[in-house]
């Protein structure tokens, strides 16, 4: 039962353009959504999050949008940089348990 899905295993974007990574979920009880970034041989690092009561959160080049009716969220990176090349995981928080449910990840490649 995959409650958090990232249907695109990979994405290629040119430097300076926008990267859009998508995530869908099935459990309407999730109260927090997070994006993690992972480089090879390193653990995931927290990037940005959004509460289920909001529809947008912005932090520098990174913006996360949440559409609760569609159970969909997206991460926008503008402008994309080669250093953004990594695997991005979407995660959702189970209320009351403080545990994360992760998606399968999307590998982003930003070419110069």
């Amino acid at each position, binding site marked *: 039962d995959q409650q958090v899905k990232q249907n695109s295993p990979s994405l290629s974007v040119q430097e300076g353009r926008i990267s859009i990574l998508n995530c869908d979920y099935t459990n309407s009880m999730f109260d927090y959504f997070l994006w993690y970034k992972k480089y090879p041989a390193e653990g995931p690092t927290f990037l940005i999050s959004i509460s289920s009561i909001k529809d947008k959160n912005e932090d520098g080049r990174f913006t996360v949008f949440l559409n609760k009716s569609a159970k969909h969220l997206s991460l926008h990176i503008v402008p994309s940089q080669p250093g953004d090349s990594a695997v991005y995981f979407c995660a959702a928080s189970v209320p009351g*348990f403080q545990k994360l449910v992760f998606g399968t990840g999307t590998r982003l490649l930003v070419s110069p």
Partner: protein
Amino acid sequence: EAGVAQSPRYKIIEKRQSVAFWCNPISGHATLYWYQQILGQGPKLLIQFQNNGVVDDSQLPKDRFSAERLKGVDSTLKIQPAKLEDSAVYLCASSLRGLSNEQFFGPGTRLTVL
């Protein structure tokens, strides 16, 4: 501030053997998590500790996996005996207040079971 430390970084064993992983969380972090990440999948929570007590171990295969966190600091995760499907990266994370958006991950231990 030192991050989450894990050792070993890599381990290769044969099926039916035993293996143990060690995690040292960020100083002062009360909550500690062990995740299993199989190739091509996202991390899956195995067990969560609050200090030295277990908060959630619902997805831990208890017939072969065990974990402990003595004195509420370091933690070890053991697999005995290992199966081929246990090949994965085992990630340890810690959190100061147990909030889901404040988990800091270690580099992981890559386990290969032959």
